[in-house]
Every structure is written in structure tokens, then in C-alpha cells.
């Protein structure tokens, strides 16, 4: 058996690195579980009503879905760059990257509003049929997460602007960044589920 007392003290005390804090990770895993239930519900209902789902999907705009996917992935990329910059104590580039991330998130909001307005003009709403109930419920739930994420990113950008992430105390920054990546991850599954796979 390995006697751990013979290991150097740094090795004995070394813990696996966790970006952000544990509470945020519990929150992220809980959110992913809720979305998992929606994905399963959507997939099962699609099996039950294939014609309704195919017809409903024909009213969606795959290009709008693709623009939103590119917007969220790019936003996530900018957040990763922003985190990189703050780790090097470069506040100004970090704030600039975070603003770029927020602009991309805003693009998502605008496109999603346009998509909703197009569907409303065609007379579709949350109570039109099972397909649109699930479509509006899942996308609106995700939309709320994007809005919350934007609030968190704005708060982080403001703190970075004031220089409050000094001396490597960036756990809050990392937690907010991980939340935003989670929002992106959910859309990575939603995009093909809603727009691509018929």
C-alpha cells in the first residue's frame, strides 16, 4: 500500500481544480436535469405525433436557428477569452471581450423575438397544439436563462471594469462564465432537435 505520508506536502494537499464554486455547479447540474426532462418529453411526443411535429417544424426558420447557434457559440468563445484575460490580470481586454459576448447574446435575443413574432403573425401560440406548446415552453425557458446569463455577465463586466478581480480571486468570474457556457450547451442540443432533425 502506498504510504501517502511519504509524498511531498504539495501532493498531499493538492485538490482537483474546480472552475467557479461548488454551489454554481450544483445549480448548473440541476438546470441541465430540468432541460434533460424537456428533451425527453419532446422526443417522446415527437414519436407519438410525427405528422404534427413535421408540420410544426416546417413553420420554423432553420437559418434563424443557425444564426442563434453561431451567436451563442461566439458569445461563449468571447467569455472564455475574457476569463483568459482576467487570469493574466488584463482587466481592459477582459471587459472588452465580455462586452463582445453580451453583443452576441443580444443578437440571439433579437433573432428569437423575430422568430416568435413571425409565428404569432401566422397565428401560432403556446396553445395551438402539442408541438407549439413544447416549442414555446422549451425555447422560452431557455430564453429566460439567456436573460439571466446576460445579467450575470453584465455584473461580471462591471466588476472587472472596477478592477475587483485582483490577486487571482476570480472564483465568481469563473462561476458566471460556466453558467453562460451551460446556456450555450443547452442550445447546442436544442438547435438540431428543433430545427435540423425532421
Amino acid at each position: 500500500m502506498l504510504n501517502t505520508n511519504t509524498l511531498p506536502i504539495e501532493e498531499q494537499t493538492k485538490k482537483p481544480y474546480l472552475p467557479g464554486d461548488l454551489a454554481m455547479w450544483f445549480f448548473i447540474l440541476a438546470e441541465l436535469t430540468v432541460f434533460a426532462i424537456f428533451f425527453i418529453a419532446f422526443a417522446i411526443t415527437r414519436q407519438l405525433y410525427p405528422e404534427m411535429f413535421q408540420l410544426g417544424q416546417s413553420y420554423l426558420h432553420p437559418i434563424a436557428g443557425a444564426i442563434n447557434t453561431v451567436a451563442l457559440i461566439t458569445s461563449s468563445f468571447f467569455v472564455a477569452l475574457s476569463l483568459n484575460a482576467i487570469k493574466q490580470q488584463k482587466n481592459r481586454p477582459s471587459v472588452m471581450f465580455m462586452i463582445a459576448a453580451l453583443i452576441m447574446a443580444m443578437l440571439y435575443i433579437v433573432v428569437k423575438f423575430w422568430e416568435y413574432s413571425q409565428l404569432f403573425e401566422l397565428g401560432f401560440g403556446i396553445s395551438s397544439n402539442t408541438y407549439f406548446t413544447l416549442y414555446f415552453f422549451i425555447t422560452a425557458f431557455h430564453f429566460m436563462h439567456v436573460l439571466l446569463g446576460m445579467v450575470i455577465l453584465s455584473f461580471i463586466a462591471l466588476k472587472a471594469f472596477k478592477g475587483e478581480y485582483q490577486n487571482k480571486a476570480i472564483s465568481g468570474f469563473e462561476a458566471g462564465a460556466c453558467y453562460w457556457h451551460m446556456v450555450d450547451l443547452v442550445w447546442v442540443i436544442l438547435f438540431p432537435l428543433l430545427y435540423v432533425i425532421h
Partner: protein
Amino acid sequence: MKSIGKLEYYWWALIAITLFNTFLGEQFDSTALVSVLVALTVMYKGLVVIDHFMELKQANRPLRILMRSYFIFFPSMIILTVLF
């Protein structure tokens, strides 16, 4: 800490995959092959974001396994639904 060059490479890869998926969805009626291709690319995109954007590759191992399992499970379910 990631070098910007590496992150940029993954970003370009994710964008290219998104455009490829859109092209598949627009140009082809959904066949089993298209759905399997899309599911595999979704799996890859998820794993890239988890490992390189969330920086879990060198981080907490159980958390990384949990997150990666999510992106292995759901695309696999898409493939199973198509095949059976």
C-alpha cells in the same frame, strides 16, 4: 489557461459544424444517416465546449465525467431513436 490560438481553432470548428448541420437540415430530408451525423456532431460540439470553453479538461474529474456523460447520452439517444 488556454492559449487564444487553440480556443480560436475550436471556435472555428464549432461554427463550421453548425453551418454543416444547417446545410444537412436544409438540403436533405431527414434520413437515418443525416440524423446520426447530426447526433455525432452535437456530441463533439458539447465535448469541445465542456473541455475547452468551460476548462474542465484539466479540472475536477468526477464533474468532467458527469458533464461529458450528458453529451454522450443525449446524442446516443437520438441515434438509438433513429435506428430502432
